[in-house]
């Protein structure tokens, strides 16, 4: 059975509304940004309902003929919204946005708006933890391989960007020398061309080297000693790579 975690009062009220109308023949729609858990919520509330996507109009029409209870995702993608007949059916739809308000208003008795992850700080933290566990499992990482508190949060496209930033962070932070070499190798194999490649691609190594060095040691003087190069050479390279 699917689980749905939320601390958001707004979503708890949505769940309450659905639980009350579970046995009634009413049509409801959940509207909210992409990747905020609308479909998971519908699945959690109606685990045994047939589910179709609004991307496929014929499938939706056929399902409406066959089932009394139906989940329709991506409702905004349906072109024939006006001609749908939800009488005496239990319809649960999800949509990223309201296309034509009048149509939605006519079709649905319950129009719920689901807040995005940005507005649900506690939920976002929970999902982040969940994704980290998932990524850890997928990438075969041990907890000692990375620092949990340094994993960034990116909610620009809700759970999608969050998942991406977590996987990227964990991959980068768990790479060993061999993986880095392989990554650079793959990149070069694909991109190398022209007549100045040596100098151009040296940047791949030099720029992060100097940037990390400056971050770690603070002064150019100290860094030139660590790197074992002349201070002027270092200054020239900083200028070359436009490092602040």
């Amino acid at each position, binding site marked *: 059975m699917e689980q749905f975690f939320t601390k958001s009062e707004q979503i708890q009220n949505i769940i309450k509304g659905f639980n009350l*109308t579970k046995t009634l023949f*009413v049509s409801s729609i959940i509207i909210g940004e992409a990747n905020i858990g609308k479909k998971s919520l519908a699945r959690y509330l109606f685990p045994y309902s047939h589910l179709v996507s609004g991307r496929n109009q014929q499938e939706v029409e056929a399902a409406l003929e066959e089932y009394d209870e139906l989940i329709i995702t991506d409702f905004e993608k349906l072109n024939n919204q006006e001609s749908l007949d939800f*009488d005496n059916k239990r319809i649960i739809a999800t949509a990223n946005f309201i296309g034509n308000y009048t149509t939605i208003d006519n079709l649905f*008795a*319950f129009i*719920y708006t689901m807040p995005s992850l940005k507005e649900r700080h506690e939920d976002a933290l929970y999902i982040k933890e969940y994704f980290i566990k998932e990524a850890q499992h997928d990438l075969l990482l041990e907890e000692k391989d990375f620092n949990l508190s340094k994993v960034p949060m990116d909610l620009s496209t809700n759970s999608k960007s969050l998942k991406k930033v977590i996987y990227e962070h964990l991959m980068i932070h768990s790479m060993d020398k061999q993986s880095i070499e392989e990554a650079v190798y793959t990149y070069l194999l694909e991109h190398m061309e022209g007549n100045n490649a040596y100098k151009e691609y040296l940047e791949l190594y030099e720029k992060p080297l100097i940037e990390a060095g400056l971050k770690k040691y603070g002064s150019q003087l100290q860094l030139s000693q660590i790197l074992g190069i002349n201070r002027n050479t270092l200054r020239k390279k900083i200028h070359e790579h436009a490092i602040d």
Partner: protein
Amino acid sequence: MNTLSIDFQPFVEWDNSPFVLFSNQGKILYLNNAAEILFGYVSKQELYDIALAYAPQSFGYKTTTLTLSYDSFNFYAVTVGYENEEHISIRFYNTPRVKPSAPLESGKLMTTDINILLEANIALFKTKNSNKLQLLTDQDIPSFKIDQNNFSKLLRKVLDAFRSSDSINISLKLLIGEHVIILDKKEPIVQLSIEANGRYNDADAEIRMLANQSHISVLLKEHVIKLEIPLIQ
């Protein structure tokens, strides 16, 4: 036939239309049952002023068409008359209840616990608004047949009219002794009343239409919306 010996007063007494007899000082000398209920919603002075305003120029009776409404009482005309300097009478003509034009689609009616639908709609309202809300309901109202989807839409729109109101009071009760005839059957009436310090009226036309489809009579006032819902069994 000599009709002089017949006492006509009981006919006036039990007339559905309010009738009031005032003295020339504006004192009530007589009022029938319907007028007694009407005085729950309007002051004596107001009705006396109306009687004076629409009185005929000399002794006699005059009927004027006008629109008056007090709570759920609506009148389309008044007759004012006087035969001497001491008494003046006024009779109000009830506007007939508009019969819903659309027939009730019995195929869509499902036995429903109205409290569940109301609670779900309040939950929906709370996802969007944080207004204070008070609910007084009768959990013993029996389930009755209603078009669930249509009625939910109606409730959503009604509640939405109070989206920025303070201290919203919702009450749901059975109207004792009142009935409505639907499909040749006498059905009890449940009244849902929502009251606040004010409300939006942008969806009033839609509310009327949706209510009409479910044979619900609706009262739309500045501070209150009342739905009289037939309890179809």
